[in-house]
């Protein structure tokens, strides 16, 4: 028995080895290299790897702009994921009731998800162009004042959040729809017999049963949102002021405009650690729930 298990495990590892090797080369090596740079004095001007310990991390966390970027990233990620989840859940629940043309609805819903973030940003940049964009032109035609969607420091981040929700919600819809489709019918039938209404059924049956899928959706989207870069780069370059400067953009600027690859890598590593921490906590909660 034990020999059989060992053989099976060996065969399993054998099949997994090519994939794992590729992962190690494609993902592991760059991450290791970035880690080495973040602990060194390497810049684009002086490209030598000499060990400096945690000095780059200390430099980054001593800067108010870093904390500003971190705070904005947290606000952005929480707001987008919350929005995507709520809108996505609502759409998934409605789609559950749809019988005819269900495939058409799904096809339409996946369109934004299939677009590259750069294309999405360019489209929205044209739509929201303050003077010639269709949104402000429509407002003007209705006699309403034009709005500076991306140039007002109090509004720019909210606009970015809206655009992100517009694009990413379809992914959440797909995940939650798959989760809803896999729910067993029996608890609903039993609840109906006991006189439970739709709201009670949703609250006490659908939501608890959907929790694992929902948590997966939230984790995946949180990871995505923490890494958002394209939208900022195309739409605002982090402005006005620093009102939309996410941590990923901060790291990019430090590495390529500031020529400090070491400090840019340190900032990127802090971002990676935050994402890892969130992932670990969510999976811990998920496992505990399962057990």
């Amino acid at each position, binding site marked *: 028995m034990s020999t059989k298990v060992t053989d099976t495990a060996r065969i399993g590892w054998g099949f997994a080895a090519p994939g794992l090797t590729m992962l190690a080369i494609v993902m592991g090596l760059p991450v290791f290299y970035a880690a080495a740079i973040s602990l060194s004095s390497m810049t684009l001007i002086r490209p030598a790897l000499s060990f400096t310990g945690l000095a780059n991390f200390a430099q980054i966390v001593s800067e108010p702009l870093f904390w500003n970027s971190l705070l904005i990233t947290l606000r952005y990620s929480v707001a987008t994921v919350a929005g995507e989840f709520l809108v996505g859940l609502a759409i998934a629940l409605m789609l559950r009731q749809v019988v005819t043309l269900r495939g058409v609805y799904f096809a339409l819903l996946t369109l934004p998800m299939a677009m590259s973030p750069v294309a999405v940003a360019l489209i929205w940049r044209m739509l929201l162009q*303050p*003077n010639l964009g269709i949104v402000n032109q429509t407002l003007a035609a209705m006699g309403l004042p*034009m709005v500076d969607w991306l140039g007002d*420091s109090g509004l720019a981040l909210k606009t970015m959040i809206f655009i992100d929700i517009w694009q990413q919600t379809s992914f959440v819809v797909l995940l939650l729809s798959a989760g809803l489709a896999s729910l067993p019918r029996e608890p609903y039938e039993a609840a109906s017999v006991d006189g439970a209404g739709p709201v009670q059924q949703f609250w006490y049956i659908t939501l608890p049963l959907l929790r694992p899928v929902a948590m997966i959706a939230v984790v995946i989207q949180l990871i995505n949102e923490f890494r958002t870069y394209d939208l900022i780069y195309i739409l605002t370059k982090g402005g006005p*002021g*620093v009102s939309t400067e996410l941590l990923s953009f901060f790291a990019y600027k430090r590495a390529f*405009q*500031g*020529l400090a690859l070491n400090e840019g890598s340190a900032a990127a590593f802090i971002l990676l650690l935050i994402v890892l921490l969130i992932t670990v906590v969510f999976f811990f909660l998920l496992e505990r729930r399962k057990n």
Partner: protein
Amino acid sequence: MKKTLLPFALGLTASLWGGSVLADGVTLHALMEDVPETAIIEKMLPDFEKETGIKVEFEKVGYGDMHDKLVAQLVGGQSYYNLLEVDFLWAGEFPAAGWLEDLKPYAEKTGFDTAAFIPSTMELLGNTDAAMPLVPMYNYSMGLIYRTDLLEDPALQAAYKAQTGKDLAAPTTLADYVAIAKFMKAEGKVNGAAMQGQKGDPNAMEFSNYLFAAGGDYLDADGNVVLASPAGETALGLYKEAITTAAQTGALSATLDDTMRLMCAGDAFSMVTYWWMLPQIDNAESCPDVAGKVALSVMPGGHGESGGWGWGIAKNVPQEEKDAAWQFITWVQSKDVAVARALEGHAPVRADVYTDPAVLAKYPFYKDAMSVVESGKSFPIFTYSAQYEDTLGTQVSLAASGDATIPDALAAAASGLTDLMKK
């Protein structure tokens, strides 16, 4: 089997031999900004190829993508781009990193005359008596483009006189300019100023014009930071006033393209911009609403932002490619080719092109353009200029949006410059 293999082997050998013969011809690869200047040169490339046998390939991208793409190649073992188009903002960084070939020995060896270049265009690129990292390519100094029809409108003239007691005329000081722009927004049914206030390169360049026009500067003659001065406060105060009271909606997120569209559509009185935008706006085909109604002047106050691109040669490429790149540079910047380019709309860097009779006959405003180029002052050029553009742009944006006070923003911009220069 042997019979079938023999012709195959011979064919393979022949094709490999032929391939290596073809590979002997050098091909120049250049990453170019996707602007009219590039298109003008691109049209002339067949002439150069016919003359020299050297093939030239341009890869055109937006400005925002250029720096990172170039840096990625220049830090590697061998750069794909052997012929370089380098912005003046990188003229401190690239030589400091050791990425550029010194072109002075090439010029001496081939007798290339650098005296023909306007001195400010040479200084802008960090060229000294000791070294020449870049050869001037084209100039993009900034000036004021404004609508003459609005200034000459009798109703607006009367209203302006009644409001201010002054005649409505082309402004001669920065304060006058902002006052007229505000008036046009209120009374002229147009935006007073089409402004590019997006943080970073757009607003840093635009603000520099205000700074120089107000009599301020970034550095004094000894290289000390003098940005946080009364003139600096006046400049930033007027910049904020222009953004909030004279510019278009959305000026704080606008770029050069946005300002161009506004001006072209006849929706703005003025724009502080690159002088070579004039022929594009004063064009009956592309901008029929304003063609014949626009003029160019030096920035009110006497000085605007100077700017320009240079040709460089990557250090990490084979010598034969370096020699071919130098051959191209001397060809494209020669008097004859520069005049031919100017007749197509090129922004010259050679003084003799601005005074060329054929050029002046086609573009009389090149006389004013030369004044703009000659009077231009430079953004601080040092290793971290590109990063400083972002630092300055952030503070200007914060001040213009009301999220920071003028003195605080100016002090932060000045200390940012001091820190980066010490780095």
